[in-house]
């Protein structure tokens, strides 16, 4: 359970996040949706204190995050960065083992965990000795997710994890992650600016505009009852695309 209340972050007087309230239920996959610059990344980073809020609280299972040692907090939360952010001087295995090593896991345990994650993320075992610049974009993204999952966190924060991928790889990874989320019993907050991705993956979608949540609900609720003009506008694109594809399929069959 993540409870966010009155969260504010200002840069040079301008609010990037402006009194944001949000509750994320246990084992929920919540998608934070909004256009570029609306404050999604800033919100996500305030949850694991990569950024310190100017006001408001974040509570994790009832505990104020501000009272937890930030380093310990981050080791307990998986984070997938916008643009992946793998360590270029470390191999795939070393990247995946980053957090377990910081937590001083036994070597064999760490090695076993790396293999387990390679399998889970469907990466060939032989890839573990490669450096990040020897991987494709999709492979790098998989390693990024594996690294976030390594220390068995209960909470995953993902910042546009599939943003830079080709449509096929992207679709594949979206489905795989949705599966994993259920299988591992995770609580996930996934940031995107892509409404289709949000509708396909989310248990609930929170739509952000200018640093606030303007509408929150299940994909079905949003599609059937957008309420806000901005939300309706966002839904227009996937709706139009779906209708055209359906029409094509009907004409064909």
């Amino acid at each position, binding site marked *: 359970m993540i409870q966010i209340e009155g969260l504010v972050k200002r840069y040079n007087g301008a609010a990037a996040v402006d009194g944001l309230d949000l509750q994320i239920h246990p084992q929920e996959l919540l998608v934070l949706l909004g256009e570029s610059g609306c404050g999604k990344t800033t919100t996500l980073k305030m949850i694991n204190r990569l950024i310190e809020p100017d006001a408001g609280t974040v509570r994790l299972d009832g505990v104020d995050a501000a009272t937890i040692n930030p380093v310990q907090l981050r080791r307990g939360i998986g984070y997938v960065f916008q643009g992946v952010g793998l360590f270029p001087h470390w191999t795939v295995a070393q990247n995946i083992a980053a957090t377990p090593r910081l*937590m001083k896991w036994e070597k064999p345990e760490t090695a076993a965990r790396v293999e387990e994650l390679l399998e889970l993320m469907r990466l060939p075992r032989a890839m573990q000795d490669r450096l990040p610049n020897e991987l494709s974009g999709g492979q790098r993204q998989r390693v990024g997710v594996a690294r976030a999952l390594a*220390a068995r966190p209960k909470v995953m924060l993902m910042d546009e994890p599939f943003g830079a991928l080709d449509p096929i790889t992207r679709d594949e990874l979206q489905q795989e992650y949705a599966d994993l989320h259920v299988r591992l019993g995770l609580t996930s907050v996934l940031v995107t600016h892509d409404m289709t991705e949000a509708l396909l993956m989310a248990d609930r979608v929170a739509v952000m505009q200018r640093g606030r949540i303007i509408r929150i609900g299940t994909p079905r609720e949003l599609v059937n009852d957008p309420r806000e003009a901005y939300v309706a506008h966002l839904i227009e694109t996937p709706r139009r695309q779906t209708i055209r594809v359906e029409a094509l399929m009907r004409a064909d069959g």
Partner: protein
Amino acid sequence: MNAWINNLEVLLERWPTLASEHVLVTVVSLGLGVLIALPLGIWTVRRPRWRAAATGVASVVQTVPALALLALILPVLVGINALLMWLLGLTDGPLRAIGFLPTVIALTLYSLLPMLRNTLAGLAGVDPATVEAARGVGMTRRQVLWRVQMPLALPVIVAGVRTAAVWTVGMATLSTLIGQPSLGDYIITGLQTRNTLSILLGVVSAAALAIALDQLLGLMEAGVAQRSAWRKAVAAPGLALIVLAGFTPITIAPWLDADRDRPDAEIGAKTFNESYILAHLIADELQSDFDVHQRVGLGSTVAYDALRVNELDAYVDYTGTIWATIMKRDQIAPADVVLREMTQWLKEHDGIVCLGSLGFQNAYALAVRKETAEQHGLKTISDLAKVSDQMSIASDPEFFGRAEWRDLVSTYGLDFQQKVPMQSTLMYEAIAAGEVDVITAYTSDGRITAYDLVTLTDDRHVLPPYEAVLLLSPEAAANPKLTALLQPLIGAIDIDEMRRANLMVDIDGDTVATAAAWLRDQIDKNKKTD
């Protein structure tokens, strides 16, 4: 050919010592430089104001010419010594103002800029997204620095260390001038004695060391970055070998100071062979009772400054030099007056004791062939003036620009047919071959004997006297045993003997030790005949 091999053999005798000392100061300075520049870079990279201050200071140090920096450290150390003595109530300064310490300070300061700059650039060049990812996976600040920022900045930092290494090896050649032996000894004495082989040996050895350090550091960095085992396997032992070469018994011995029974005696020498020979002679005299160390190749006023503060115990200087550069006197006086006034002045101002003249002068003189002297009956410069309009004179181009030359011309009314500026080595050949009739020479130059020349008396006292005098530091002068051992040298060396000794080293390729031993024999013989 034989002479070359001979010359090289003699030069190579000192190579292990000089190379080892050179490596020692280089490695120690670079090590200290890294220990200062790295933390400073890491600490200031996020503090713009401190960063500007640190790079500013390092840049200013860099603009000071190397030689000036070396020379400036000396008075600073002397000052610190005085302060420490006053604060701690010591009778002796705890810091050595010449040799290893000032060299390492200067080289370390010099190495800072490239290393500091590259540390800052390397750290600033790490992608901020990577740093944030490091924090995101749960690294502490320190872990981010050592596991992510430093490894990623390493190639740039190592490039800075490589630049510093090359500079330091080069600058270390100058340390000879402040009493630290180095490969620069070859270059400086080579320049002094026009021994091209010596210069080449110094330059090539230093260049080889610089290239080796640079390449090995590069290889090591590549080995680490590319996880290349063979690169590391070559670079690590190579670097270790160089470092070890600096810590040989030769370089460490003075630190261990094995000879505790006998008191130390530090003997200085300036940058020319006569000075080396005399230092060796003094060292031989003291050997029986003292643990003697020679500091040869000292810059012109370094020896004096070191003597003043008891860093040196004794060395030979020349009355004319002290008169002009230390006492700042410009009027010419007769030799005995200069000696008397100088002795008094040194005692009063710096507590330095002039034990007396060794018995010869190394002054400027006009020299002619023996036949010329006999033919025209020349004994003095006044004699020469009468016939100068039939003669040509050769000299160092520098001498024709000096006040001494103008005074000579005006006082004696010299009017030469021709004035030929010429390198001093060529001068002797030219007069011997009859191409010129008169040359300027240093009176103790062995070539005066070798080419059978006659020096003319300066009967109107225009040229300043340059009597060789034995100077003792205040402390050494208070040591009765030391003064007793050196007393026999006073008035014991005549000009012909000094010329011969110089000739042995300058022309015949004998070692300084051989020449000093020969001089000693002469002194003993003279004693018996007295």
